[in-house]
């Protein structure tokens, strides 16, 4: 089974964008080892010739005509933003201009 150790948990937390506390990292390491260990039960099944099922009805590539209809007004779309200008969300600088 996959080795779940502290380094794994820290890596997954980083990918998940979750800043976990020391207590959380320890607790989740224990719990993830148990739960992911349980997932290994699926290795009992031979799935070599089985197609993966992601949509229960087997729908693929649903299309409709490209009709222009009104979108939500901008002020409504921004109405819950914690930090905003009149027409945009505000975030810290992403790319350092220097």
């Amino acid at each position, binding site marked *: 089974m*996959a080795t779940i150790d502290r380094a*794994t*948990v820290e*890596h*997954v*937390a980083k*990918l*998940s*964008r*979750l*800043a*976990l*506390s020391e207590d*959380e990292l320890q*607790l*989740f390491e224990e*719990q*993830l080892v*148990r*739960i*992911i260990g*349980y*997932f290994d*039960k*699926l*290795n*009992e*099944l031979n*799935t070599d010739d*089985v*197609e*993966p*099922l*992601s*949509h*229960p*009805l087997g*729908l693929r590539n*649903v299309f*409709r005509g490209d009709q222009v209809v009104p979108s*939500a007004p901008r002020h*409504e*779309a921004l*109405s*819950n*933003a*914690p*930090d905003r200008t009149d027409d945009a*969300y505000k*975030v*810290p*600088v*992403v790319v350092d201009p220097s």
Partner: protein
Amino acid sequence: MPDLTTLSAHDLHRKLLDREVTAVEITEVFLERIAAVDGRLQAFNTLMADAALAKARDTDARLDAGKEVGPLAGVPVAIKDNLCTRGTRTTCSSNILGNFVPPYDATVVEKLDAADAIPVGKTNLDEFAMGSSTETSAFGPSKNPWDLSRTPGGSSGGSAAAVAACEAPIALGSDTGGSIRQPAAFCGIVGLKPTYGRVSRYGLVAFASSLDQIGTFARDVRDTAMLLGVIAGADRRDSTGADEPVPDYLAALDRDVAGLRIGVPNEYFAEGIEPEVEAAVRAAADTFRGLGAEIVDLSLPHTEYGVATYYIVCTAEAGSNLARYDGVHYGHRTADDVDIVNLYSRSRAEGFGAEVKRRIMLGTFALSSGYYDAYYLKALKCRAMIKGDFDAAWEKVDCVLGPTSPTVAFKLGERIEDPLALYLLDIYTISANLAGIPGISIHCGAGADGMPVGLQLMAKPFDEPTLLRAAAAFQRATEHHKARPELP
């Protein structure tokens, strides 16, 4: 006048149309009921008294003017707090959305309004619908009206408690791995999860996109059929839905079950099931046999792989769906936004509860480089095999019968410390979500300590009529559904 709060939705609607009572009178009675009991039950996160009374006044005015009203006119409805309601706070019982006010209505909310239903409030749930007891709610758990020291189940615990306690005759919930059916079982009411794609998910805050489905709570199967007829149907805003016509679900209710082939899987009576639950469910099978149904032994051989399959697929999808909670567009934003990565990581860490974090971690792990094939892809293949069990079953039977849950409602605090043990209790409900088939839970008797036992029936995709037919026949032949909890 009888106590309006104990009436079914269809009886309330009839009394309104017969002008025995006004919509405003009905609404006031239910708001009083909520005020009297919800302090103890905590089924509601947010009440919608003003909206409810405004809708009721509008309905009365239309009736006075001789105009038509919709099929749910005069009927109060409770709405799970992961369904977007324009202008009314929608929290998903999470601190990360504590003040989120949606600028739009979910499709099902629009449909309820078009049917003239009266929305009384938003109900409590496990945070982001992740849980089986409503104990992961950031606002505290709802209580089971049959025993306030026990869970009402989850994740739609608030909606189930509200209907069982007569705070509303009907409610909407959502079901990803059993989150309607299990609370219905724990609270002794009718819970229906429709076929995947039967009801539009537009406006349902997404947990697991290939598993989530909006469904119904009621005490009377006729109400279930009415409500399903209102919310079902294709929607151009949900591309994962089915383009299936909506039949007249009420027509299914009056058929008897003579000749109906009901499969009973031997895997559903394995270890872990409480003896009283097994006894009540087997007695229910005997009731169906007495009504002329044919009880057929069945095997669903991949049942034991369902929990592992489900907790890989749903967590992977959840990790992806919850990436949007980043402190930017809505929701909680950390004060510590020194750079973009900290903005995301700290907002999310501060806003999400432990179960949500745990599931995001599991899902991210299962999708991550090096593990994707062994976990996520493997789980999707196992999912196909689980669906294959049902495809084979439909050659021999029209529906599948079993317990909804291996246990009756457990005490609050009893199971929440061991996530894996709690996950294992989903064994009977998750297969329906993985296979996309409809499932209904109905009250079939008393278990340990007099707590309700739920009977589950599942059927082929889009065969909700068979479920409604069987459930209605059971309610005609038995009295369990008439039992009501005595609130202290």
